[in-house]
């Protein structure tokens, strides 16, 4: 079994984690974007597998999902892309998707294929801690981490979730769904502080982050920052020509301004 790469993203540094929706605008661009994101300073990349009804996502990422689906993107084709990308880079890669496409593909096949192609982790917003057992059997056997979430409403669940978390913990900065926000008011430091008392698994914060100032603020107490909608928006605007634009944006975020 290949050693899981996720820990490399957090080694001796704060991780910058961009998200892109695989197949938006097409899979050739996805490959180009991954390499450009790494070049621009990304430490781990989240690749979205599109789903028709992404209930944890805001309108920007919903639209990206639908664009990818309209282009005929499937899990099978995304695995082909990942396989190809892996011949060029060893950057940690995790999927972000919803449970139904994975369930339909078959849990066993899916996680085997993740391991074979070089996917290090899977983020599935609609599988909370209580339901994870049905996939952990297959993910663990294949050395793929299932990333757990903490939310502003997690309260008494923080310790239980953090203790069992693998790879990294996705801390939702605020209530609601993904998407750009101007202000983040949740008491993130307290949530992460409680998690860190029971686990060494790094905590990365996502939902609504889009400025270098926010990244700076978050890195005071978190191990990484996740940025999705802001990047997807650039891809929405420039399509196949987005490479240099997202690279420029990620550089500015990575250098905190």
């Amino acid at each position, binding site marked *: 079994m290949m050693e899981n790469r996720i820990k490399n993203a957090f080694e001796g540094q704060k991780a910058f984690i961009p998200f892109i929706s695989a197949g938006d605008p097409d899979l050739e661009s996805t490959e180009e974007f991954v390499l450009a994101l790494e070049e621009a300073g990304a430490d781990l990349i989240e690749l979205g597998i599109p789903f*028709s009804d992404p209930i944890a996502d805001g309108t920007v990422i919903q639209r990206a999902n639908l664009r990818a689906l309209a282009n005929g993107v499937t899990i099978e084709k995304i695995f082909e892309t990942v396989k190809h990308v892996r011949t060029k880079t060893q950057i940690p890669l995790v999927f972000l998707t919803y449970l139904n496409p994975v*369930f339909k593909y078959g849990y066993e096949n899916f996680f085997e294929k993740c391991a074979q192609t070089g996917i290090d982790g899977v983020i599935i917003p609609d599988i*909370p801690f*209580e*339901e994870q057992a049905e996939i952990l059997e297959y993910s663990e056997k294949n050395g793929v981490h299932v990333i757990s979430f903490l*939310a502003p*409403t997690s309260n008494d*669940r923080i310790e239980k979730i953090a203790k069992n978390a693998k790879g990294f913990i996705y801390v939702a900065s605020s*209530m609601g769904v993904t998407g750009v926000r101007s202000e983040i008011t949740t008491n993130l430091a307290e949530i992460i502080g409680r998690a860190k008392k029971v686990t060494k698994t790094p905590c990365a914060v996502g939902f609504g982050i889009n400025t270098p100032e926010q990244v700076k603020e978050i890195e005071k107490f978190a191990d990484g920052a996740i940025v999705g909608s802001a990047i997807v928006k650039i891809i929405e605007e420039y399509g196949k020509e987005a490479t240099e634009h997202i690279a420029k944006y990620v550089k500015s975020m990575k250098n905190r301004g």
Partner: protein
Amino acid sequence: MSKGRFGIFGGQYIPETLMNEVIQLEELYEKYKKDEKFNAELDFLLKKYAGRPSLLYFAKNMTEDLGGARIYLKREDLNHTGSHKINNVLGQVLLAKYMGKTRIIAETGAGQHGVATATAAALLGLECEIFMGKEDTERQALNVYRMELLGAKVHAVTSGTMTLKDAVNEAMREWATRTEDTLYVLGSVMGPHPFPMIVRDFQSIISKEARAQILELESKLPKAVIACVGGGSNAIGAFYNFINDKEVRLIGAEAAGKGVDTELHAASMTKGTLGIFHGMKSYFCQDECGQIAPVYSISAGLDYPGVGPEHAFLKDSKRAEYVPVTDDEAVDAFEYLSRKEGIIPAIESAHAVAHTIKIAKEFDKNDNIIICLSGRGDKDVAAIARYRGRKIFE
């Protein structure tokens, strides 16, 4: 395995943000369902406000015309707001109030659940926002105005297919954004646990009454209970207290739209496959990659790509049977019941009437069967007229 299972179906497949909310909802529901004051208040509302018990009406003309079983209609259409939806919303909105919530949100398809929710919110003094697919706001424009008249804010949902599924997506997103003062009042026996249980409990009054009524009228149990199934709330309500009466056939009529061999249907039992969506494991209309299919039915209330997990379990355990009914059959039944009995059924309920017309003759003249007439059809009149080529607009 997690809580809230019916066999392999059900569960709590929702984002972490909502987990403590559904856990708290379950705890407080369990507490208040045993609470004397809560039950007395709910009982009062059901009787003195909603008009329960609803009639079990002997459809004499229909019985004579079809020449089979004696047909009874459980008249949920006579409830305040015109459908069974009020049973559930009075329970859930009262629960929201006991939980200290000041705002409720809900999805709606045809607008029946939205109108019922807005009604209960107006009565009990809670703020109310309704999510409705943009396409449905156009199909059911009068219900949009009705909800606004009742003081609710209606959001026309423009994402995805702009129908009920997308209204649920949007309501879930909204709930994840604001839980502190807000309860999501789900309209059907679907979504994550504890909703399928709570909604079923509140709707089970249909079969509790119907069972006692039929025993009093006929001194025997019905041979069959027939109800339409979208998410499945009126059907589970009509079935529930008959589940242990093994000799009673339970039949759900789902929307076959233009036919189950076309792509234009919402028949998740006949054509759907096992999947996980909207918080539950159940049967869904979806493609081989697990993308949720756009569904179609003339009936906005049945135009949903999934079905409640308890129905999926009743199907798999063979305790209930589920049959497809097309738009054409439902419209014929809509007209049939109007002419035969002077009762205009909701186009949803007309699916159950249509199947009854097909099977009534299979029964003996001494047998009786019950149709759950889940709602009244006033809301559908203009759309059915257009279906028949008459250009009537609301």
